């Protein structure tokens, strides 16, 4: 254990009984993710409140590119799979595989960010900036914060890969990988929501001249669902 102490102060969770029966770091991670739901919830609510309220273009239908974003969504889904493989490799103490899957996850995340940078730049040249209209403001704020989460995750994964390279990840420190994985998957599910709401549902919203019957309010649809 001695050589593990500087990177990980915990023993395998079974050895540290807690009142909740859950490792405290893991509980903290879940509490954080739970609170992050509120964070993204507010941003999503803001998007929905201002959805379709822009008085000047470009409107979503003018610039949202669903096919391209479907591809980047696949990339993020793949990265989640790579992440679970990294955790499995850690539990099984397959050192080479740990590094491989951690790096694969990080690279897929970076590709996703690449798509986002490409998209943001394209939008900018097409005239949508964060201060252009309500759509621009809410869109860039929401997707921007998600992108920031992904970026942080990439840094975290690269750090883990570096630790793994020094041979310090294994079954006893699997929680280190597990926590990063929880964060990473959470970022993935946030994207699942964003992709559905901003692209598949809101991506075809038109401007004031558009036929309102073609652009149902998201919440009305939700109520119809219940």
């Amino acid at each position, binding site marked *: 254990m001695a050589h593990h102490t500087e990177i990980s102060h915990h023993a395998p969770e079974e050895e540290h009984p807690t009142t909740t*029966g859950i490792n405290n770091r893991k509980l903290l991670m879940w509490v954080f*993710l739970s609170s992050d*739901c509120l964070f*993204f919830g507010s941003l999503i609510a803001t998007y929905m409140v201002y959805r379709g309220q822009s008085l000047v273009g470009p409107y979503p239908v003018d610039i949202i590119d669903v096919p391209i974003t479907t591809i980047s969504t696949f990339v993020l*889904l793949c990265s989640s799979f790579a992440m679970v493989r990294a*955790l499995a490799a850690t539990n099984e103490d397959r050192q080479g595989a740990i590094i491989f899957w951690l790096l694969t996850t990080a690279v897929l995340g970076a590709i996703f960010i690449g798509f986002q940078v490409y998209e943001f730049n394209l939008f900018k040249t097409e005239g949508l900036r964060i201060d252009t209209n309500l759509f621009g403001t809410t869109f860039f704020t929401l997707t921007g914060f998600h992108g920031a989460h992904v970026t942080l995750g990439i840094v975290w994964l690269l750090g883990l890969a570096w630790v793994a390279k020094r041979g310090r990840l294994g079954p006893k420190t699997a929680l280190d990988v597990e926590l990063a994985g929880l964060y990473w998957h959470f970022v993935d599910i946030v994207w699942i929501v964003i992709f559905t709401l901003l692209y598949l549902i809101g991506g075809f919203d038109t401007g004031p001249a558009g036929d309102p019957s073609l*652009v149902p309010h998201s919440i009305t*649809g939700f109520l119809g669902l219940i």
Partner: protein
Amino acid sequence: MSSDPGVHESRHPTLKQYVGIAIFLFVVTIVEFVIILPMEFRGAGWTIAPLAILSAIKFAAVIFFYMHLKFDNRLLTWVFLGGLALGFAVVLALVGLFTAWTPSARSFADDHAKPCTLDHELGGCLEDRVTAPPPVEPVTDPPETGSEPTPAEAPAAPAGGLVATGQQIFLTGQGEGAATACFTCHTIDGVPGATGLLGPDLTHIGTEAATRQPGVSAEDYLRQSITDPEGFVAEGVERAVPGLMLPALTAGLTDGDVDALVAFLLEQK
């Protein structure tokens, strides 16, 4: 890796399960994409329900399997679902507060959209500043009809109706005829919204007008300034842009409008 995915044995799903979930997520995403593939389905109201359900399924698959909530302590599930429910409540509350559940995404904007002529001098919309001042005393009686003021309105000066009409024309440019709203260029202290900086300050024009042109009464001077701005431009009047008050600006006003404006300006002592 155990072949038994049971809770007792392994706290994580098996490789086979992981692969299965990955394929499942892919397929669901493809289905979502296919739903909006036909042009006429894009943005259609009925697509919202299936899309929302499919993404909720993906969401659940990731948290219960990839994040192995299904195999973990129940408390974690409640911690997370609690935050999720709160987040959902925030969304419902904010949307309910701010959109009043409008029937369509655009209907609120369509109802509230108004033309905006950008004011490059002062920023904002010209239209906003026309409507910004609180309603002036109600102009219920146009001067021509000369209806008897009811006791409630009695405190108003005899020319009150005319003055009020004048103020309204000054602030909106809309009388019986129409002109460029005077407030865009003229300031009158004490009249909300009259903050233009291009022409002379008219705060005390009611007294100053008499001194502008020897032998010309205040009323005549004002009348001429409005109907024929170029006719006589008094010396020594401070203004940012001399000669800007072009005849065309006021050409649309009727005689009645000019009477009202003059009455209003004479009150600015």
